[in-house]
């Protein structure tokens, strides 16, 4: 069976459209770049100051790194800029899709992914700007936390990164769309039944009338 993270990254990659400007967060979201379908050209934005991010390991230049500090390349047609321009692109609606990890997401589209009070406070980095500015916000995360507790909830209890900002959640169990009425389960992983998804989810789910198996992950 495919590893959960790969499965999630493959499915998220299918959300990208030809010509999209895309920002991928550190960790799992970065893996999405490995699975972009043939014929789909996207421009990856790196919030440390450029567009046209290449593959990790393509360059060894210490001044050409992605937002996680990993050396990477820049594709022909790319451009470098400063942090104000980088976030003008992000906040100004020039980024079509952002993919981020999550600690908690809830049925109102609230996202928490930057701190656990008293325990872990890495800081928000660019996440708060990305969720408010990108046209489409996708959360790519494993369905439950390491201790098995639910991460998709009726209401986040960790400090928020953004309020009502999430459009789509992709986990190894399924694809969930945030709609006015709540969370719509649109796709389910093969070999997983709806009861299992419900048991591992802390939010009420609306099951789509057109529920299908998760795309591109067979």
């Amino acid at each position, binding site marked *: 069976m495919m590893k959960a993270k790969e499965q999630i990254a493959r499915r998220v990659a299918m959300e990208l459209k030809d010509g999209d400007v895309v920002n991928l967060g550190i960790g799992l979201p970065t893996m999405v770049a490995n699975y972009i379908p043939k014929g789909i050209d996207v421009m990856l934005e*790196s*919030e*440390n*100051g*450029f567009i046209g991010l290449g593959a990790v390991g393509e360059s060894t*230049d*210490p*001044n*050409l*790194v992605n*937002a*996680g*500090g990993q050396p990477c390349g*820049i594709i022909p047609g790319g451009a*470098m*800029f*400063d*942090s*104000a321009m*980088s*976030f003008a692109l*992000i*906040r100004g609606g020039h980024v079509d899709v952002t993919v981020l990890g999550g600690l908690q997401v809830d049925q109102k589209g609230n996202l928490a992914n930057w701190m656990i009070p*008293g325990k*872990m*406070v*890495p*800081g*928000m*980095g*660019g*996440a*708060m*700007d990305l969720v*408010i*500015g990108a046209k489409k916000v996708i959360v790519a995360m494993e369905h439950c936390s390491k201790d098995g507790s639910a991460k998709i909830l009726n209401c986040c209890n960790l*400090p*928020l*990164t*953004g*309020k*009502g900002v999430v459009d789509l959640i992709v986990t190894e169990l399924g694809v969930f769309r945030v709609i006015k009425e709540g969370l719509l389960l649109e796709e389910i992983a093969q070999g997983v039944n709806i009861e299992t998804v419900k048991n591992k989810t802390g939010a009420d789910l609306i099951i789509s009338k057109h529920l299908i198996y998760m795309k591109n992950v067979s």
Partner: protein
Amino acid sequence: MKNKQLNIQQVSEYFKDGMTVMVGGFLGVGTPERLVNAISNQGIKNITLITNDTSLPDKGVGQLIVNRQVKKLVASHIGTNPETGKQMIAKELDVELVPQGTLAERIRCGGSGLGGVLTPTGVGTIVEENKQKICVDGRVYLLEKPLHADIALIKAKKADKAGNIIYDKAARNFNPLMAMAADVVIAEVNELVEIGEIVPDEVMTTGVLVDKIICVEAC
């Protein structure tokens, strides 16, 4: 035009206990390491540090945290330097976490004569606490105030002796913004050329903003 070149031994007079300093860089990329080392060696204390992140413990500004030289930190990310979080949780270090785009704009405002910026970033989160909310045409924004420093330390690939600067790839990040927002700006560059050798169209930071230059390679 005046030659702004200094050698690294001459920078000590610019560093004072209690200073507010901006340091360029993103995870240490684009950080003037020699200038940071000079602050470290001089044992400057009670620094207010404005920087994107606290890098790694042994890279960039990370050592200033490890050495406990910083009293207050304004940054967007501290997760790659465990010492920062440890000192923050123990209440030994005052940390103001600022969304990265907001940090960039606050510094830009500080150097541009603006009274602040209105941003939707952080609305509905703890970032909005104690900030003025302003509604413009039906959308709510936070008023984020300018940041200014006593001294800014920036890193560049190349400068001419008048201080005109060219940055290198992703090492640009916060450097051009900080070059506008401090009373004194010191640039650490890898290559220093004669005035006139940099084509005006290629200048990324004008020399009028740069007070002193330290050259660390080809001079």
